[in-house]
């Protein structure tokens, strides 16, 4: 079981991703934007961060830059990007240990990519699973 921080401003995408990840008995923490994710990261650690790129308050790229520089964390990150400039994003993010997963995506493939990443990071799968719907205050 791994602790996964899921950062996504689209409620539908957040819900379906959480549903699929929960099948693999991971603990999911949901954040509606990058600013809420920062608040979570300041108080706890995660085995993996899955984040969208385009979000209000703080976008995914800015979150990763803060994570690696100011926060000094090397937590693996997967960015979900539907932008046309994915190559440019990958060029900057991959040296920081970030994988880019393009949108639209298949949930099963995303889960497989997440499991592979967790495996590379040496995370253990444990039982039972819970989904923590700790949604931050989006408007705040």
């Amino acid at each position, binding site marked *: 079981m791994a602790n996964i921080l899921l950062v996504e401003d*689209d409620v539908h995408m957040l819900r379906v991703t959480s549903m699929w990840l929960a099948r693999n008995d991971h603990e999911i923490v949901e954040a509606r934007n990058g600013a809420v994710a920062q608040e979570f990261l300041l108080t706890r650690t995660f085995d993996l961060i899955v984040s969208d790129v*385009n979000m209000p308050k703080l976008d995914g790229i800015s979150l990763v830059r803060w994570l690696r520089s100011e926060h000094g964390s090397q937590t693996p990150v997967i960015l979900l990007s539907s932008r046309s400039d994915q190559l440019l994003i990958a060029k900057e993010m991959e040296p920081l240990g970030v994988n880019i997963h393009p949108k639209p995506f298949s949930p099963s493939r995303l889960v497989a990519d997440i499991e592979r990443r967790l495996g590379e990071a040496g995370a253990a799968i444990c039982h039972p699973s819970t989904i923590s719907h700790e949604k931050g205050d989006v408007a705040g």
Partner: protein
Amino acid sequence: MSLVGILLFGLGAASYRGAVDTRERFAVRTRLENEGAIELLAASLAQTQPGDTVALQRGLRDFMRWHRCEALRVTDSRGIVVASMNLDEVGRPVNPQDATRERGSIMLPPEKSNTDRQQVTLPIVWRKHPSDHGVPNLEEDGERAWLQGVMLSHVDTSLANARTGTAIVILAVVLLFYLLHRAMRRHFRSMSRISEGLLSRGDQIEQDLHSLRLEGEKGALATQWNRLIDLVEGLSATAQRATASAELKAVLEKSRKGALGEVINAVPDGLLYVVEKTRLAFGNTAAYRLLEVDVPEDGTASLDDLGFGAVGTLVVEHIRAALGADGAFVSASAVVEAEGGSGSYRVRVLPFNTRRKTGECVVTIADISQQVRADKAAEEFIAQLTHELRTPLTNIRAYTETLSSGVFDDPKVISDCYNVITKETRRLSRLIEDILSMSQLEVGSIQLHVDDVDLPSLLGDAVQDLRGLADEKQVDMQISLPSKLPKLQGDRDKLAVVMNNLLGNALKYTPSGGSVYVGCQVQPASATGGDEILVTVKDTGMGIDASDHSRIFEKFQRGSAEAVEEIVGTGLGLTTAREIARGHGGDIEVMSAEGEGATFIVHLPMSPQDAARGRSLQHSALVG
């Protein structure tokens, strides 16, 4: 040469003849002198006592101090030598070969040394009785001896030397002349060619100075001549350039002050004319403004002396980079970016080499800031648009796969999946429609079909179109119009989109039991100086946080409140509405606070002049 040779020959012949004549005269004089000298000696010896051989010897010795003699002796009457310069022959009979008893002198033939000799023989008579005239009297005088001497000719020797010297001098002169001729021959040939070239060209000499060079000639004169020609050519070219520059300067100066100067200075792009690699011969007003430098007083200046601003420095660097090693400019183009992204400029260097003149170019500086910004905005719009289209597609695909996987068999989950798919499909559809609507607004300008617009009628139609939705949501919708409202100049269809978008938003974001108000009034417009119509759409809905007041007008942006997410919207409605309002010369303002409803006010100028000014929109509907 032949003339000189004849002259030299004549000189030599004359010299030789003169030497010969001189020799003969000197020979005669020398003989007479020698005879006189011997006579004096004889007379002197006659003063001694007869038989005083010592005195005789002394006399001979004194004579030899002053005269060159080959032989000098005194013999007695018997022919016995009693005194001589050669002591070995004293007391001996004189050599019969040398003995003579005749008074006089003879010129002996020259020996191998070519020295003339004169033999003089005189009697020595000791007088018993001295006579007045001193001539020996053979009858009365006493003992007699004979003085014989062979005297050498100093003059002959000198003549011989002079002859030899003359010959040597002549030979030396000939040799010197020959050597001088050899040395000067090369120069004479060069001078001959130079004079031929100069004379043959006459008045056309300045047309082709280069042909006067002595090609293939060696020697200092030819080398220096060629250098002189090169120097003159260079000076000529410099003078031509200076003349051309002076003429050009006069033309440019004249053009600055004339109509051409006004035209050139009116061109918004910078224009520079660079000469002599680094000299700024001309620049228009736009160029000096872009370079951030004052116009030189005489209109020209060196690029190295002018103090450029940041952009100017980059432009000058680009000009210098286009200068090749051979001193000629090459074509070059580059974009110069001002610091902080405040401007972008395309700099083009166009070589202007004519008639072997190099180091000249024309430089154009075009401000492409707006185009660069538009291109960047277009790139950002495409990226954003891609994201907006892919988001609902992602949801549709994810939920479709969730359903088809069969993994989730909870009925509620299945029902939610279908609902999301339906919603996102509609969202995608509306998004595409809004994008198509915006695409009708031409990039960079909005084309309005201006005519009289009955605004009350337009508002009434918009309200009526949404009456059903309002009733469904149980939202009270009211409209209030003044009794008299002047006709508005504008595009009715575009204005209808504005009203529909504002009314639609008001209804969407107002919960059941709320109300929407539409009003209209005329008031003076401070900006245009004329009157303007204000259309107000006010609701009692969820309101908009102040931090979002400007963002909601940007493409694909909506309010950040969480509740907004639950309401379907593309984020393009307010963008379109504002672009249309601005196209009419007006604008849209919002007054709202979260949870306290929202009021949108559309400002529309009424005068035809303002409407015409609004036909050309500075803000891009799609990319700005």
